């Protein structure tokens, strides 16, 4: 587990802003483009203050043109800049998929390694805000499917800041997916500068009996479930991959070799999503160590409903995790 107990307590949103602030100060080629990112500081108010610091030339309000601004990001990136393209809701990346997948992700390879696309696409994920089916999706499985993209889904302010800084310095397109429900989540970040490499999982809790692989906000559900499980005498290890690509397969497999049981928890739609990939990596890599099948908990495979009573049913929950862990550990 990353030790960073000595530092300042800030929110997840502030961590993102600090990363951008620091990197924009460090490198004049970094700029931000997106809808209402400047004066409004994004609809989630995450970037408030950047406009004052860097002016409208580097914090650019765009028209409502997701494909256009992503393409502009690619063009700026291959010609020497380091754009951060802000796509307000992950649901809207559907409009920019050609630019993300056919352009940003493939340009380096198609050019035989000559052109580079050092670009960050910041977007959001996560249900629970009663925003209904077109403002609640978590589509990071899609981005992770695409060779040429890297994908970070931080779960804490510490990870968010460190991963964002690394992403900005990367010479590849990196998609950072932020769970909207975590912007006010607090955590400690170091006073001094730091970065976090992409592709290194973080053990958020050490345990012996079962591994809970959890991403983004699901990490906090897994930690809460671990408390409940501890009370039942089940010691859960919580492993956060932090990036879905590169994926730290070794860390996941090693944890499960130790615990011999695993549940993978992610807020994307379950089918053909992140849980399937990670579960099959574990089921393969730790095959001879497993005492039970690797289980998965993703979002329910339905368009996310508006009505709170229904929406809540679609999101993985602490009881879901606890129940499944109990079953896997033979406690029922």
């Amino acid at each position: 587990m990353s030790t960073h107990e000595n530092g300042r307590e800030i929110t997840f949103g502030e961590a993102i802003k600090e990363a951008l602030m620091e990197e924009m100060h460090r490198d004049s080629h970094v700029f931000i483009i997106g809808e209402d990112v400047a004066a409004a500081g994004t609809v989630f108010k995450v970037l408030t203050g950047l406009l004052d610091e860097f002016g409208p030339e580097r914090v650019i309000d765009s028209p409502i043109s997701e494909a256009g601004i992503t393409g502009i990001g690619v063009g700026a990136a291959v010609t020497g800049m380091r754009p951060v393209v802000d796509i307000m809701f992950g649901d809207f990346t559907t409009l920019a998929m050609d630019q993300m997948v056919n352009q940003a992700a493939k340009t380096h390879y198609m050019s035989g390694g000559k052109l580079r696309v050092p670009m960050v696409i910041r977007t959001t994920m996560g249900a629970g805000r009663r925003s209904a089916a077109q403002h609640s999706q978590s589509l990071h499985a899609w981005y992770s499917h695409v060779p040429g993209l890297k994908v970070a889904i931080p779960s804490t302010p510490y990870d968010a800041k460190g991963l964002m800084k690394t992403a900005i310095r990367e010479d590849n397109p990196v998609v950072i997916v932020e769970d909207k429900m975590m912007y006010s989540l607090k955590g400690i970040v170091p006073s001094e500068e730091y970065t976090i490499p992409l592709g290194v999982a973080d053990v958020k809790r050490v345990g012996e009996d079962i591994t809970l692989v959890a991403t983004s906000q699901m990490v906090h559900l897994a930690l809460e479930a671990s408390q409940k499980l501890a009370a039942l005498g089940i010691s859960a290890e919580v492993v956060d991959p932090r990036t879905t690509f590169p994926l730290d397969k070794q860390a996941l497999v090693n944890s499960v070799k130790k615990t011999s049981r695993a549940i993978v928890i992610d807020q994307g739609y379950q089918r053909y999503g992140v849980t399937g990939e990670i579960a099959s990596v574990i089921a393969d890599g730790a095959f001879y160590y497993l005492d039970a099948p690797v289980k998965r908990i993703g979002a329910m495979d339905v368009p996310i409903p508006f009505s709170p009573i229904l929406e809540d049913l679609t999101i993985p929950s602490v009881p879901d995790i606890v129940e499944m862990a109990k079953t896997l550990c033979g406690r029922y």
Partner: protein
Amino acid sequence: MSQDETGISQLDLTELEETTLDHWLNTYRQMIKIRLFEEKTNELYTSAKMPGLAHLYIGEEAVAVGVCEALRQDDYITSTHRGHGHCLAKGAKLDKMFSELLGKVDGYCRGKGGSMHIADQDTGNLGANGIVGGSAGIATGAALSIKMRASDQVAVCFFGDGALGQGLFYESMNMAQLWNLPVIYVCENNLYGEYTPTEKSTSGNRLARAEAFGMDNVEISGQDVRLVYQTVKRLVERARAGEGPAFLLCHTYRFRGHHVGDIDRPYRSREEEEKWQTENDPLKILSDWLVSDKMVEPDLFSQIEEEVRAEVEVAVTFALDASFPDEMEVDAHVYA
């Protein structure tokens, strides 16, 4: 229809004579229904009774009502995130709308859609849309379907000025014009997309965006429901007669914030807001004219208002009392 020196089309007063007083009183009723519905929605939000957010249509009532009064019930509309006005104007019922906003099973979408996705097949409303510009293709496809079925329906695509940033609009307009489809694109230019003034996100001339495809286009004030109605009636007639699509640019203003939680509005001045609210209130413009030209007693408007207010109260009470969907509903209707 005549134009003023800026090219904006003006009211043809003689043509108005054809329309009955009853029509205008009903128009007024429709507009105040939207206004009161939205005020109540705001109240539901501030009293934490409504989940999520809502984008209020207050100030823009003349556009939805002017357009929809010129449509038949079986004509189609596609709507936007700011869609309550379109829904009501096309004939939706207050109780089922409130129920939807509250996530109740009696809502138009059984609580599954919410404010941003209300659809009502019975009144031809193909649905609000959470994706800015997302319905441009749908409206155009409805028009293609009309043509293929040899029907004489018409499809109207409502959208905000911000949606002009979306490429899909241009793809759709190109095809609508190529294939001469009965679709009318109604741009509600309320001067802002979220917190950004439209001139910061829109270059050139908005009307020219339709002109570029050879499409018939008209620019009007969207605050005068008489003008909206008159203009759309003509465009609908053309479209029904197989004379093709049109683009209508309506200048309007949202009197409230982008959504119910947008209280401070640092991106625009209180003066600007006040000017629109006092000088350009669509309800007042209509009622003033009815009083001065049609000799309607001012009291009639308060009477209508009270009637509608009572309806709204009944509807909201219905919705507040209504049930949430059963948990079993959650995975129903994923597939037909």
